[in-house]
Each structure stands twice: as structure tokens, then as C-alpha cells.
């Protein structure tokens, strides 16, 4: 009980401090750091692939000693499930929510579960990274791509387009992640439904596709050779595996690649609001965004970030986008039809 009342007190304090923060001068920065240190930690529910999430956390802890980051990494849909279940039981645990399903943030905003907060420096980000109402901002972006195992085929043999994957020669050789787990994949499915219709997935399912959960997993499955082509998945996890020497290559289909902007937001009930703001600001700094681009292979909205030479620039790709609102509205339909076709 005392925890809860402490959390309540923290919220009140946070509300008071919020006014100061907006003023945004060096003195209040210091005051905020002190407040964050008093809170001791920030609880981060994130869908960022685990090693990357832990790296961001370590960077932050190095920059702000005395404030710990508690990383809880799972799939986007699981994060939403957790947040909602905890709230139902009146548990206020999470400070910062970060998933790859932009639809979640529409939902959370509607339910008044997000705090309005504009991280420092996001003004310069492209429009696709910003919520009009100022509740959530795109922390990172990835595109869905095809990955194949280079030991199993030459570049010429590899599929070039999404439609190529329907060829029966891939039967039993494909792997997909699950929209019921991953926001990256939910976005992917919706974008391809726009492009090719549900018939595409119906036909794809004919190829007896192995089903994994996380959008990071198709690439690991392809690396191990368990399946040789991944029909979706964030290109950043594939890129990392490739850099580590795994025998995989990434294909960006010509029809266009679904862009997944993964927003982050502070909850309205955050038990550690100051730490949450400090952490959110940190994740939007050029330093942190550059790390995500360099070592994680992610795209970001930060204008000054540079990208590895062996990765296509965002503006070189044809991007397929979906609106968070549509994603939110059709979430249930996406999962249901996917399960209908793929079985689980």
C-alpha cells in the first residue's frame, strides 16, 4: 500500500515539476536530475530487441549514474496486454512504454493513459514520427524486409518481391513472425493487405510457413538454416545478425517496404515521472539515436543521424505506411484472419 501512496505522491510532485520542466533551463535540468535520482529508476516496457534494449539502458545508466533502467522486453502485443492487465488490477508499474504497434498509442491516448510530453529535440523529426497531440513520438523505425540464407541460395535465386514468396518452390522453407505478438508484423500485415489484399496471405499460407513470435526471430531462424527465407521481420535485427557474420542477406522488395515507426510515450500514471522524462529525452538525443543507427541498424527520425554505408537510406526505399488509427481499428481483424490462414 505504501508503494501505491508513494506513487501517487510522486505523480503529484511530477505534476508540479512539469511546469518547471517546460521552462527548460539548466537549473531545472539539475533539479530534474535530482528528482530522478530520488526516484532511483525508470521502468521501461519495450519491444526493442533485447540486446539493443539492454545497450540503451546501459548507455543511459552510464550517462546518469544513480538512475537505473528496469528493462522489460517482450513483444508489442504482450506489452499492451501487460499494461492493460496491470491497470485492471490497479497496478501502476510502468513509466515508459515503447512498442512497434503505433495503434497501441492511439488506444492508450484515447484511454487517457499517456502523459503529454514532448522530448527535447524532436521538433526537427519528420511528421511521421510525431503525434499531432504531442503524446507519443517515434523513437526508431525499421522496415520489413525479406531475409534469406546465403548458404542455401545465390542472390539470383533469392526472392525479389513479396509475390515471389508465393512460388510453391518455397514450400516448407519460409518463416513468419506473428502479428498477435509483434507490432512490426502487425504493421507489415496491414501494409501488405493494402498492397495485395488478404488473398496474398491466403496464398502464402499454402507454403506451410513456420510461425515464430517476435519480429526478430525470423532472421535468427534463417541464420540457423532452420528455414531459408523469412517473409517478414524488422530489417534491423537481420542487419545485426549479418554484421555478426551470419550467412544471411536482406532483400528490400521493389513493391515497397512497410515502414514501422515505433513510438515511445510516458504513462499518465508513471511512478517515476522525472526519471521517465530524463530517460525519454536521453533516448532522443543524437548520441543515443546514432547508436541505434550504427550498432543496431535502426532508422530514426533524427535529422543529424548518419547511417552505415551498407544499409539503404530511407529515402532510397519505397515506403509503405499505415496510419496508427487504422492499425488500432483493425488490430483484431489482422490477428483473427492471420490465425485463420496460418493456424496459430
Amino acid at each position, binding site marked *: 500500500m505504501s508503494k501505491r501512496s508513494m506513487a501517487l505522491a510522486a505523480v503529484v510532485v511530477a505534476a508540479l515539476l512539469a511546469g518547471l520542466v517546460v521552462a527548460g533551463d539548466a537549473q531545472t535540468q539539475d533539479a530534474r536530475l535530482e528528482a530522478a535520482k530520488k526516484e532511483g529508476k525508470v521502468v521501461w516496457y519495450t519491444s526493442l530487441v533485447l540486446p539493443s534494449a539492454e545497450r540503451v539502458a546501459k548507455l543511459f545508466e552510464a550517462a546518469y549514474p544513480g538512475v537505473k533502467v528496469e528493462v522489460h522486453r517482450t513483444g508489442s502485443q504482450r506489452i499492451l496486454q501487460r499494461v492493460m492487465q496491470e491497470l485492471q488490477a490497479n497496478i501502476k508499474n510502468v513509466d515508459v512504454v515503447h512498442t512497434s504497434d503505433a495503434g497501441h498509442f492511439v488506444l492508450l491516448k484515447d484511454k487517457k493513459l499517456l502523459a503529454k510530453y514532448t522530448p527535447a529535440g524532436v521538433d526537427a523529426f519528420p511528421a511521421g514520427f510525431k503525434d499531432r497531440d504531442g503524446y507519443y513520438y517515434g523513437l526508431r523505425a525499421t522496415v520489413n524486409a525479406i531475409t534469406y540464407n546465403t548458404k542455401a541460395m545465390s542472390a539470383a535465386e533469392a526472392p525479389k518481391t513479396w509475390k515471389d514468396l508465393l512460388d510453391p518452390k518455397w514450400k516448407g522453407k519460409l518463416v513468419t513472425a506473428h502479428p498477435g505478438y509483434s507490432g512490426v508484423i502487425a504493421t507489415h500485415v496491414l501494409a501488405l493487405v493494402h498492397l495485395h489484399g488478404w488473398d496474398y496471405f491466403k496464398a502464402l499460407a499454402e507454403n506451410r510457413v513456420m510461425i515464430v513470435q517476435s519480429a526478430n*526471430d525470423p532472421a535468427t*531462424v534463417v541464420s540457423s538454416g532452420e528455414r531459408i527465407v523469412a517473409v517478414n521481420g524488422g530489417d534491423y535485427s537481420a542487419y545485426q545478425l549479418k554484421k555478426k557474420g551470419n550467412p544471411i542477406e536482406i532483400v528490400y522488395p521493389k513493391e515497397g517496404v512497410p515502414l514501422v515507426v515505433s513510438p515511445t510515450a510516458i504513462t499518465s500514471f508513471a511512478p517515476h515521472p522525472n526519471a521517465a522524462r530524463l530517460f525519454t529525452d536521453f533516448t532522443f538525443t543524437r548520441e543515443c539515436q546514432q547508436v541505434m543507427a550504427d550498432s543496431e541498424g535502426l532508422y530514426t527520425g533524427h535529422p543529424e543521424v548518419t547511417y552505415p554505408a551498407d544499409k539503404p537510406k530511407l529515402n532510397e526505399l519505397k515506403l509503405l505506411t499505415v496510419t496508427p488509427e487504422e492499425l488500432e481499428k483493425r488490430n483484431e481483424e489482422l490477428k483473427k484472419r492471420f490465425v485463420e490462414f496460418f493456424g496459430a
Partner: protein
Amino acid sequence: MDRSVAVWVFAALSLVVLMALPLGWLGWLSVSGEHGATLAHYRDVFTDLALRKALWNTVVLAFWVGLVSVALGAPLAWLTARTDIPGRGLIRGLVLASFVTPPFLGAFAWVMLAGPNAGILNTLWRSVTGSREPLLNIFTMPGLIFIVAIYTFPYVYIMVANTLALIASDLEEAAAILGAGRLTVARTVTLPMVLPALASGFILAVLQALALFGSPAILALPAGFHTVTTQIWSLFQFPPKVEQAAAFSIPLLLATALLLQVQKRVLGRRGYAAVGGKGGQRRTIPLGAWRFPALFACLAVMACAIFLPYGVLAKAAFARAWAQPLSRDNLTLGNFTFTFFEYGATRDAIVNTLELGVMTACVGAVMVAVLSYVTNRRLVVGHQLVAFLALAPVVVPGVVLAVGLFIAYTRPPFVLYGTLWILFLAYLTKEMPVGYAQADATFRAIPADLEDAGRVLGAGRLRILKEVTAPLAKSGIIAAWCFIFIGVIRELSASILLFTPSTKVMSVVIFDLKEEGQFGAISVLGLVMLGLTFATVALVQAALGRDVLGTRK
């Protein structure tokens, strides 16, 4: 009578908190609609094609697991109990190891062994034969059945081996002297006497398969099919359909209760007293030239359950890429540093698991000790009912219990969700029957005379409890403690619905990591879990002075 009241108040309260409240809510939610009672959820559940398929898959899985378990367990039991097969102690030890191996770890290891393409066994097969087709595909129904069965057959083994150990050879020789040949003796005497044990082992295996969550989640979901347990779990995904999950839990609950009833009948009909040929000797049957082929067959089974999975876990724990040979470049301690030092959730989960394990085991051991003492010494009116209640949770599969607990304890008056307490309740309920059975056997083996003898000489009941009963029951209760502890640290099917990010346990972290394909970290955690389990088993064996599978010498 006053002590009866106290015991009953205690038992009734426990019952309400552990069983009545969760299951009551479960039942109620399954029939509650916006406008009062409704069967709509049942209609939804049983008209949904996908859910009906899941139900059917579970039936298929459970039935075949039962059969395969009998096919593996019965011959192994006969070989070790009755023949001169070499290495009997070793085989028994390996069966025990398979018994205590968390099935989801086995399933996970077999993904690395027999994934159709990258699986180590399949790679080997292809390189040896040049075939393009895999030897085994674990992501299939037969694959799932096999994996579940190699960790479930010990139930059949235990039932059959212990029964065979009770059947004196006289009974068989009596048939032989009347002119029955070896096969006829086996068919007309041995088999009928073992049949109840066989049937009951079959049912226990079926029950395990029904209630299992981890293995289907790891093997069935990638293959694109659900079982009841994984389906219930996915009904909890956002937006949660808790009412449907409740409605879908009811058939599982009923099936379990029904099967247990059948098992009781099967065991009860032919008295084991008749089997207990006191003093009769049990002569071993010489296998002759078959000794080593038989041993080889046993070891082949155990290779599937133990050697290969443990080996691949160990390999993956030390490898950068588990599918590649363990060359110098591929060797790393990185998985350990990542698991223990970089991934924040691990340490919390280990601490939570140990905390819950110790807490549940301590509270549970005290509870089962008190309850079984009270029932064995008939200290209260209606002691049979106390015994019944202590054993009752056995009919509740972990997932179903978790659904009930989730519903009951996410709302007032008891909001326990998000705390370790809800997991504690789940574990306590789930492990109560195992602990009670052990404690009951312990007190049964201490004749009441030993206590009465002291009382006549002038010692009060409490004093006798302390000076006579407690020292004699100590090792049995320690064993109960260990059984509960082992049960807790491997628990997944209830935990998976009840954890929150701040109350993760090891099994849940392993499952989380599995969803992300972090094979190295899972293997490290898996080894830790196995280490803990075997250390505890060693403790039991030391306490009981016998192995966990067997009857008292």
C-alpha cells in the same frame, strides 16, 4: 471438539482462498453476461472452428502421449524390475532424471536437435545420407507427442515398476507349475496383475499431456496449431477474452476430474493387498543373449530424453551459434555474461523463483504435515474430508487454476495480481496434493503405537509430537518440502498467466527468451534450473535413503 473447530476453520479458509474463490469465479465468469447468466461464452467457444480444432488437437495429443508412454514405460519397468539387464541402477537414475526434467526445456532442446532444417540431428542425417529431406520434424503433432511422451513415460514406469516389485514370483511360478508356458504366464498372470497399474499410468500420462503448456507452446505454435492450454493463454492477449477463456477451461477441468475418477476405480477394483505377497521372493529372469540389446534399447530411449537434450543445451550455452560446430571461434562465455550480468530480468527472476520456491515449500510442508497428521491420527471429526480437500487440487490443471486465480485476485477484496502472492497461491494449490501424498505416506509409516507408548508413560501430546513423531517424520517431511520446491521452480503453465514484469520467474523468462529466439541465454538458464532440480533431488534421496521413484525398502 475445540481443536476440530480450529482445524476446520483453517482448512475451510485455505479451501476458500486456494480453490473455491478461483474456481467459483471461473465458473461464474464463464456463464455471466451483461444481462445476467448466459451460455453465450460456451456457444462462442464451441462454435469457433479454431477453438474446436484446439480441443481436438488436445484429445489427439493426450491419447497418443498416453499410448507412447505405456509403450516406453512398461517395458523399461519390466526390464529393470524383473530381468538381469545390466545397469539397472543407471537406467532407474535416468528415468528419474527424465521425470524431473522440466518438459518445456526438453521441448526447447529438441527444437535445436530436430528442427527440420537446422536441427543438429537433421544436419547430420543430410550430411551422412546426402538426402535433402529431414530425418525428423519436431514441429508436427507426432513430434510434439514424442517430446511430451519422453518426459511423461516415467509416470507409467513408476506405477508398473512398483507393482512388479510387489508381485512375488510365487504367483507366476504357481501358474508355471500348473503347466503354463512363459508367455501364457505373462499373459494370464503377470499382465492382468499389472494391468491396473498400466491403465492408471496411462491415465496419469494423459493428464500430464492435457495440462501441459510449455511444450505445445514451443512446438505446436510454430507448426500452426493450438492445444487447449495454448489457446486459453492466447485468449488472454489483448483485448483479453477472459470469459471465453473461463468457458474454455471448464471442459479441461471436467476431463481431468473424470479421468482421475476412472483411475481411482481402475486401481481400486483389484486389491493391491492381494499383490503384496509378503515374503515371496522376486526372482530375476535371465535375458541371456538379449541382455545387451535390451540395455541398448533402454539407453536409446534415455538418449532421447536426457543425453541429447542435455548435451545440446550445454553446447548452446557455450556457443555463439548453436547450429554450428563447437569450434574455437564458436566457443564463448558470452551467453553466461549476458544472462547473469547484462539481462536485468534474469537475476530478479532467479531471486523470485528461489523466494517462491522456498516460501511455498516451507508453508506447504508445514500445511501438509499438519493436515496429514490430523487425518492419519483421526484427530478431528470428518478427517476424511480434510484428506479429500488436500488432494482435490490435483484435478485442476495449472492453466485453469491460473485463469481462476487471475479472475479472483485481480478484483477486490483481494487484489493480489502483480504481487508474488498470487504465484505463491497458485504454487501452493498446485503442489499441495504431491506434498500431501508424501506426508501422508510418512505418517502412515509411523504407527500410532509409538505415540501411545509415550503417552501412557506420562508425556503429553505436544511433547510426544516433538520427541517421537517429529524425529521420525523429519525425513519424510523434508522430502515433501523438496517435492514442492521442485514443482515450483519448474512451474510454467500457471505462471505464464499470472506473472507481471516485476514478478517474473525463471520459467517465464525462459519462455520470453524463446519467443525472441535467444537460444544461448535460454540454455544457460535451463542448465541453472536443472542444476537446482538435481541438487534438490539429491537432498530428497539423502533424506529418504531411497530413490524418489520407488517404494520404501
